[in-house]
């Protein structure tokens, strides 16, 4: 009798454990809700066509501030927006610089030299993913005639762009991706600030995970915000603090992470700076690095470009 009861108990426990696991996993994979701010706040806070001149100087690089010197360069004041990227895609498609295949944008890359480093992957010359068009996270789509943007995201940073897609855009406008050193210098300048805008970070400074901005859904999904959103304006109940970097750039902490251009010896990884809307604030410290394979695309990663001063 006891044995039967215990056998039943075991079955019940197994059932409960199974149900618990199913309930954790059930519904996973659902699209996040539309954030409340999407239709209300659509304009950029800073003109995305703005470029900022960064003077030549020496500065303390990285967490431990090792001094390095950089030449003068120009850098975009904001991340590249969906509208800017769409314009490029249309032009590149018209001129045959990219091609569409299986719902993706592909472009040619000349390849990297392979050094046989530990864990290094070959990047041979060939066509690589620039942007998936049919992924639910993509904001740019192709309707058979031309590219379109999901309404409301025109002035949000373009995301779901691979490193190849980012560097192709910068090349197309006569620039390149910033090096990690240039990115960090543009963010922190010549002082020791840990965040682009200063020594502390709060909800009013940047779009990071659980920062309570209008682009966060009730379910906790954190979406991008229009570029330059944190310019001191009030958006309904949400008051921002004007949070430019040392040199006046915006969104260098949070919103979209940003691809940088360095190609390191014996590594195929490309580095991403600036935290993102999906990362905690500590990941927005100016020296914090993330890295990924160059074909990686993410709803949290975008980029901005630089040009040499001459």
């Amino acid at each position: 009798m006891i044995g039967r009861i215990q056998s039943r108990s075991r079955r019940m426990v197994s059932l409960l454990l199974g149900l618990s696991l199913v309930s954790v996993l059930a519904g996973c994979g659902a699209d996040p809700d539309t954030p409340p701010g999407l239709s209300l706040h659509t304009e950029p806070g800073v003109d995305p066509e703005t470029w900022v001149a960064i003077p030549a100087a020496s500065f303390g690089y990285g967490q431990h501030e090792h001094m390095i010197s950089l030449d003068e360069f120009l850098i975009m004041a904001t991340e590249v927006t969906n509208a800017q990227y769409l314009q490029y895609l249309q032009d590149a498609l018209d001129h045959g610089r990219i091609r569409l295949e299986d719902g993706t944008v592909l472009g040619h890359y000349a390849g990297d030299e392979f050094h046989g480093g530990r864990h290094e992957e070959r990047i041979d010359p060939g066509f690589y993913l620039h942007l998936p068009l049919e992924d639910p996270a993509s904001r740019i789509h192709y309707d058979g005639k031309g590219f379109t943007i999901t309404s409301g995201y025109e002035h949000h940073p373009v995301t779901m762009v691979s490193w190849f897609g980012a560097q192709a855009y910068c090349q197309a406008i006569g620039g390149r991706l910033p090096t990690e050193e240039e990115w960090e210098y543009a963010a922190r300048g010549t002082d020791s600030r840990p965040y682009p805008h200063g020594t502390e970070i709060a909800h009013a400074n940047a779009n990071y995970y659980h920062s309570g901005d209008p682009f966060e859904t009730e379910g906790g999904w954190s979406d991008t915000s229009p570029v330059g959103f944190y310019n001191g304006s009030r958006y309904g109940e949400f008051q921002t603090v004007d949070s430019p970097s040392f040199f006046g750039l915006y969104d260098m902490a949070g919103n979209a992470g940003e691809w940088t251009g360095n190609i390191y010896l014996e590594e195929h990884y490309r580095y991403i700076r600036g935290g993102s809307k999906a990362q905690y604030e500590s990941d927005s410290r100016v020296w914090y690095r993330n890295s990924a394979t160059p074909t990686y695309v993410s709803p949290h990663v975008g980029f901005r470009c630089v040009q040499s001063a001459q």
Partner: protein
Amino acid sequence: METPRSRYLFTSTRGLILLATGLIGLVVAIWGTLSGPMVDWGVRDLTVQYLGMDLDPAERDGRLVLLYHTIAYAVIAICVYMVTDAFRMTTAERRRINATVTAGYITAMVGGLGFGYFGHNWFMHGLYLLGMALLVWAAIILAIALWPFRKEYYVTDSERAHFRCGADQERFAFFMLTVFSLGSAVLGAVAGMYFGNGFEAFLGEDIVRYPHKTLLQEAIIGHLHIMLALIGMGASLIIGRWLNQRGWSHKLGMPLMVLGIIITSLGAWSVTVTPYAHYVIYVGSTLGMLSALLLVIYGFTHLPREQLATRGMTKPSRGQWWSALLHDPLKFGPLWQMIFFNFTVSGVGIFMAVKLDEIFRVWPHREERIVLVGHWHTLAALIGTILLMRFADMAGVKGRLRQWFGWILIIASDVAFGAVLIYEMKRLIVTEYLEQQLVNRTMLLIDMGLGLTEILFGGFLLWRLIDLFRRRGHWSREIAQECGGEEEGTR
């Protein structure tokens, strides 16, 4: 001025463990408010404001290093108290070791947290170094006291693993554990002196993708892996001692554990000189895990047998056998947690090593960091639950309270760390864009599991704190019991 209570807290095994456990609880309670949901609820700001903490974002990595070291020192002290209590040695040796390790971890805790979180006070920095030096000295005198080849410590029970000369192999295992822990601590200390003095603190998970790490960076990686592995092996040995492991499982398990300690340590140290160190570590850790498996087999045989004997059952049904096995959650729990390790820690580690280039290095570094951080947090916390169960038994948790305490601790911690496993591996089943529901649910389970575990831990400490104010509380009986043992010279 010595009072009975101060004598209990600073000289008796149970009192010393209670003090260390209480201090860990205090640190967890305060420092736990600086991260996780407490930040969203604004509790961190209150803690920082009221305690006058100085949280420079540039020094976050260094602070974290100091924080988990101070907690680890207290855990190591608890292990030392359990070892000095479990093995025969002179009263003078026991007192000297316990006093030194106590002074060491408390000094390091006060100095480390004071220096890291309350401004760079150099006096605090000095205290931290002094505390660590005392811990090293405590380990040296512990190793001397544990030397197994003294005739008076030879085993007389033929069912326990021993050398041909009669020396106790279990004592030898603890001796080797102490010696290799010392060496592994030095590995970290040498690198720490360099990085610490230059304030170039970094977290191991941040540098895993560097193709060329410096010798000292490799030393840090070797150090952090081996210290946790050795604490885990120590916990396994402590539980084996508690359950009075003997017979074939003991005779086979002890040599395996000794080899496991030696090979895993040498493997971790050799991270500094060879890229193939992890193969050596695999061999060592497999031996250690086999030894732990033998302990689990012994426990799963011995616990029901003991319980069934008290019930007078000679031919139990399967249900009765299970009931007997699960009768005492505080004894079943450590064995179960060792099995649970395999799903949440060892299995993940092996899967990660095998699929590193195919899966984990395709993910962004941030995802790999989450797995790494989840991995060793889970390992450390599960070891913590095992030691807590042992201490709860020593502290006299009995009857229905024992059942509730044990089962809630097992279930809550396993729910939390099972959810951590799903969270850290989520990229295998869901994309970044579609992850939110999974993240929310696993986070809820993690918070609930950890919350319940912490409430239980807090309740346990509160019970013992209230007990300290009673004239004839558990503490008075425990110290009387221990003093009785000490009068015999050795226990």
